[in-house]
């Protein structure tokens, strides 16, 4: 097991005008589960492939532990790409399927048996070691495939969208399995996904990328509660955070008919007379006071039992703006109603309209 360091790592494709990954600096601790997340083309897979040795590093370095691996061939990096292929061989037993790559690598028979047994225990496959894949369930087969990677005892596991070809139900199940297995194994893992829910539920920390640039790295809670810029604010969380352009006034920002107090630092550091205000759907209160907050026309209410989500629209700064708010699942407004929404006290995020950078301190929740 080992730490991983991206030190100003840069990848510029031949003929490209801007780097696919631009001066990435990231320290991944020994045993940590780090998720690289971002929209398509953000550089997350390229970053992973740089670590795997599949992409050239044009500038900067990559270290696994203290070892500079920037110019080391992939097979000598002591990493395992999990799920890259999970074909199981029908005539070989579970034990053979898990251990055959060790045989190719010249690992002795006793050592092979020890490692296969250890992996099988971790994967709850001990009792199936003599079975053939045919006699296993879908989930068990997947665990055998994972076993293939585990017995190699690599320093780092790399996973590139490993769940993308699974159906929704199996995806959620496997997600949980991978996360809990990683915690049991304690092997440093770098995991790439475009799905922020997957990132939030699996990672110890998450690194958000956009256009080849690292936007923010932190725990799921850091990212959720203190997004460092508008992009992270809008990307992390489902339903997404509401983002509005709002006028600054003395003592706060206008939110419809209300003025919401913000930190003094927001007022002093904003570059213009407006700020981008962000409010999570759960931080919005529905008011019956017609003179308060932002007037919103209800378009749809999604009922989820105890809770529900209200989807509506409003006029903000002369433009139609969509708004989402969490509401009581039993006592909620109806489609077409006009309601007034106010952000909960101390739960707004403020960003500079020009740079998109965060202006206020992190929101602290109990």
């Amino acid at each position, binding site marked *: 097991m080992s730490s991983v360091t991206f030190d100003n790592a840069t990848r510029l494709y031949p003929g490209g005008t801007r780097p696919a990954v631009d001066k990435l600096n990231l320290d991944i601790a020994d045993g940590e589960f780090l998720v690289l997340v971002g929209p398509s083309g953000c550089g997350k897979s390229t970053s992973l*492939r740089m670590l795997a040795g599949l*992409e*050239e590093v044009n500038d900067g370095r990559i270290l696994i532990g203290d070892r500079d691996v920037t110019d080391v061939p992939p097979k000598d990096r002591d990493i395992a790409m999990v799920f890259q*292929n999970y074909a199981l061989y029908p*005539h070989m037993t*579970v034990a*053979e399927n898990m251990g055959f790559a060790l*045989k*190719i690598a010249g690992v002795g028979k006793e050592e092979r048996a020890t490692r296969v047994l250890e992996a099988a225990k971790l994967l709850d496959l001990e009792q199936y070691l003599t079975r053939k894949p045919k006699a296993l369930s879908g989930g068990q087969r997947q665990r055998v495939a994972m076993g293939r990677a585990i017995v190699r005892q690599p320093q780092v596991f790399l996973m590139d969208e490993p769940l993308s*070809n699974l159906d929704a139900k199996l995806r959620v199940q496997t997600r949980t399995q991978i996360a809990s297995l990683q915690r049991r194994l304690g092997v440093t893992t770098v995991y790439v996904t475009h799905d922020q829910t997957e990132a939030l539920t699996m990672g110890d920390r998450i690194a958000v990328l956009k256009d080849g640039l690292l936007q923010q790295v932190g725990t799921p809670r850091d990212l959720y509660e203190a997004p460092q810029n508008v992009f992270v604010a809008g990307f992390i969380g489902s339903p997404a955070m509401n983002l509005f352009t709002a006028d600054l006034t003395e003592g706060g920002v206008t939110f419809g008919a209300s003025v919401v107090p913000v930190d003094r630092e927001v007022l002093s550091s904003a570059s213009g007379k407006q700020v981008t205000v962000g409010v999570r759907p759960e931080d919005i209160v529905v008011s019956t006071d017609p003179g308060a907050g932002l007037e919103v026309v209800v378009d749809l209410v999604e009922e989820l039992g105890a809770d529900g989500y209200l989807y509506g629209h409003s006029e903000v700064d002369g433009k139609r703006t969509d708004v989402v708010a969490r509401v009581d699942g039993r006592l909620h407004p109806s489609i077409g109603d006009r309601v007034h929404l106010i952000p909960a006290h101390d739960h707004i995020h403020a960003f500079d309209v020009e740079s998109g950078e965060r202006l206020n301190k992190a929101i602290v929740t109990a």
Partner: protein
Amino acid sequence: MSASLSITSATVDPALLDLPWNLPLDEWPSETIASLPKGISRHLVRFAYLSGYVIAVKETTTEMAKGEYDMLRTLQRLDVPCVDPVAVVAGRMDDDGDSLASVLVTRHLRFSLPYRALFSQMLRPDTATRLVDALAVLLVRLHIVGFFWGDVSLTNTLFRRDAGAFAPYLVDAETGKLFDGGLSNGQRENDLEIARVNIAGELMDLQAGGRVEDELDPVEVSNGIVASYRSLWKELTGSEVFASTERWRINERVQRLNELGFDIEELAIRTDEGGTTVRIQPKVVDAGHHQRRLIRLTGLDTGENQARRLLNDLDSYSATVARDGQEVDEEQVAHEWLIRVFEPVVTSIPRDLRGKLEPAEVFHQLLEHRWFMSQREQRDVPLAEALTSYVNDVLRHRRDEATVINPPTESITLPVDVVDDEDDVDWRERV
């Protein structure tokens, strides 16, 4: 049929609509299903009939089916040998309105076989080596166009017999990705390592099933792909430097590549400032050197090795018709050879035996057969005599390889094959 069924296809075949899309693939009725030799697959794949040809139908997610469909079409445009994508069928629903997995439809390549079907009882080391060499050629060709495969294996390749060698076709592009700027050395090395491990696994699996000869060592055979790949890659892409007085080495390089079955489309030639040394490096190479020559001369479209074999025969025919150093017109002789030698052989194959092998492969095997007969009998056996013997003693006893159709069975390819447990064996002995 569901109203929301969506079919994406470049060449829409209306018969596609008649397939039972409202049923999960494993429940398709046997009259729709064709029986073909099976491979190992992660997804459920079955073969069905469509307008007189056979299609492979693979259940997967919509996104992956579309991605693979587009990728296969791109690879075809790049002239990479791969299966022919027919359609993506999405939005399938069963009669209860429940959604079913999307499918990718590809056309089955006639006379192509999965590696497991290329030998009848036991895999011999030399056959395994030829398979691995064929895969190395395919991998080099894919890497030259910038395709990173990600799951190189014998399973993901189909093979056509090619005059003693095998012509490989990519069948599974699911994990592949095309890089415009070409591949890095790391990507190529990774594909090669994946290939090495997968081939060893596949051969070990055959070994576990008792289907390889004792002297075959899976690890040794699989290591063979590395050497084979590297030497071909070096020959096709490497630069060489020589004194400017040795310019004949340019021609030598071109000929070496031709021998390997490649044409150089673009060669970078640079001299140093003093003009004493020359550096050459092929920039664009095209596979199919012999295929193209054969097509130009005869119109016959065959495998590369078959073309080489047929051209050899054509060249020796040419030598026999040339009289005393008299110039012969190459195209005219080729035409003559085609109607006097090749076509009579093909047309004299009984109709019921024509599904056994492709015509060019029959011709190659006939030439081999005649050589063995002549050796044995210590005389020059005429082609007609060899043909009778070949048809009766060899061809008649082969199985059909065009498409294996009988008998139709219920389930052809499952994610993994059926094998009994052997609980009495200590697993430690088998790791």
